[in-house]
């Protein structure tokens, strides 16, 4: 058995099994995130929300998925066919492959690579291509404007996000995600780095094109932005990709600031709960905040969004990075 597991085919089989063990729960979670979002929004607006399909409406996501699959795939005659079909696939694939490095518990990452944070940052910055290619390939002005807006927005917020990540890395001394979580054993980073935590979360909203930064699909002016021409499964892939990206950003927030799989305190009732449960609870909390923000805030004006990214977040995170470096150096807390 050991000989098989150490052979090339054995390693391949294990990797495939691990990947499925990560992706299947993720996709189910994505399906139920749509349900949870509708229920949370409904509760915040004093409505009932979906309650017809199955008990408490719990089968609603599957009904929606079935409806999507049954619809006709329409490819506009003026569209660039190959890129038009490629864009939703790219969005979905990028949202999935980032999960390879997320440690759900100690040693529970599919690939525990040295540069895990950089990998995550790279993958999340590639997400813009799905949107900009979709916008261009649709050959429609609404889609194109939506794509351009989104590209500019994501590139802008990545910059301050990068500085936030560098600040965390200064406190850890490693690019490995497991090391980052283990470094938070004494105190979770959202306490000493609270302003950076807020900036990171707001940038995560902008990166995933969520309210109040959902100008890429602002329906009052751009109909549905880059998704205007999409229908059926292609649209569903965009939809799934967006929610998977929200989960990814929540997982990043959890790993970088909320102590990953660590219990809040290493004492009796808390450390009976296994690590993955804590991880899932924290990710769910972040997801709830995504929904909460959507229910609460109106959409930003585009120039205000750019101003916030470049003139507020960028200088602030840069200054905070320098302050953190000084404090760590003067107090002798720099990790070796």
């Amino acid at each position, binding site marked *: 058995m050991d000989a098989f597991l150490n052979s*090339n085919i054995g390693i391949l089989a294990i990797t495939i099994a691990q990947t499925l063990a990560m992706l299947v729960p993720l996709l189910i979670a994505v399906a139920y995130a749509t349900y949870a979002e509708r229920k949370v929004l409904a509760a915040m607006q004093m409505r009932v929300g979906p309650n017809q399909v199955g008990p408490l409406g719990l089968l609603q996501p599957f009904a929606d998925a079935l409806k999507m699959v049954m619809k006709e795939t329409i490819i506009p005659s003026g569209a660039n066919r190959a*890129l038009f079909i490629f864009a939703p696939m790219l969005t979905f694939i990028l949202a999935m492959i980032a999960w390879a490095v997320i440690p759900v518990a100690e040693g529970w990452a599919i690939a525990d*690579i*040295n*540069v895990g944070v*950089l*990998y995550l*940052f*790279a993958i999340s*910055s*590639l997400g*813009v*291509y799905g949107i*900009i*290619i979709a916008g*261009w390939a649709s050959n429609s002005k609404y889609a*194109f404007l939506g794509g*351009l807006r989104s*590209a*500019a927005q994501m*590139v802008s917020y*990545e910059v301050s996000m*990068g500085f936030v990540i560098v600040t965390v890395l200064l406190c850890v001394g490693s*690019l490995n995600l497991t090391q980052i979580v283990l470094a938070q054993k004494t105190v979770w980073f959202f306490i000493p780095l609270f302003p950076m935590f807020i900036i990171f979360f707001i940038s995560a909203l902008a990166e995933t094109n969520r309210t109040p930064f959902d100008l890429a699909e602002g329906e009052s002016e751009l109909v549905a932005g880059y998704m205007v021409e999409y229908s059926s499964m292609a649209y569903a892939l965009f939809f799934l990709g967006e929610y998977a990206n929200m989960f990814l950003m929540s997982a990043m927030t959890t790993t970088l600031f909320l102590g990953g799989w660590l219990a809040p305190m290493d004492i009796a009732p808390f450390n009976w709960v296994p690590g993955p449960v804590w991880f899932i609870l924290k990710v769910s909390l972040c997801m709830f905040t995504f929904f909460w923000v959507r229910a609460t805030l109106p959409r930003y004006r585009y*120039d*205000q969004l750019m*101003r916030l990214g470049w003139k507020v977040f960028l200088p602030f995170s840069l200054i905070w990075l320098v302050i953190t470096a000084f404090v760590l150096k003067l107090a002798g807390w720099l990790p070796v």
Partner: protein
Amino acid sequence: MIAALAFYVFAAILIASAVMVVTSRNPVHSVLFLILAFFNAAALFLIAGAEFLAMILLIVYVGAVAVLFLFVVMMLDIDFSQLRGGFQRYLPIGAIIGGILLLELLFVYGSWQFADGSAGLRMNAMTADGVTNTQALGRILYTDYIFLFQASGLILLVAMIGAIVLTLRDKRPDSRRQDIAVQVARAHAVTLQNVEPRKGLGELGIIRRPLPAAPKPRQVAHDDDHGHGGGHH
């Protein structure tokens, strides 16, 4: 074996997409092939064990530079027939420049000599045990060559300031700037209040105030350059 196979696959795709960057007719396709080329270069870095460089290549070039390329190219209004029209005219000079470059490359490569045992060295890990290549790169950049690194940073800063100075057109003193704080601030006049029945707003101590008046158009602006967004001439 698998690493060698992967190397040839990635290298072949890299060269093919580099050729497509030059030959494809649609500039947007060119940029997309350029991105594919970056990807395969990152994969080659990974095979060579330079994981940090691979990720930085993805983040900087694919995540930022190529997005801006794509951004600009998509917005260009290009007449393809006009682009191809100049082909005949520029062919001779292009061929001459290409030929000279090829000759130079051949001379360089012809006089290339490998040191003894260099092939063996290349197979070794690039850094000593226990030192990740992120640490090794950091040591070289920030410890060994910190002054050169700072100098190159200064050069980039000067270039950036130059670009800003060149593009800063707005030199008029009376141009209206936005004051976001004023724009997003609420007055009571636009706020929903939960007022109990039969009690007026006055009972709650809330007095309706009018919205801040739009500023008068200024003739000369000296110190105050905040516009309130709603001013008309």
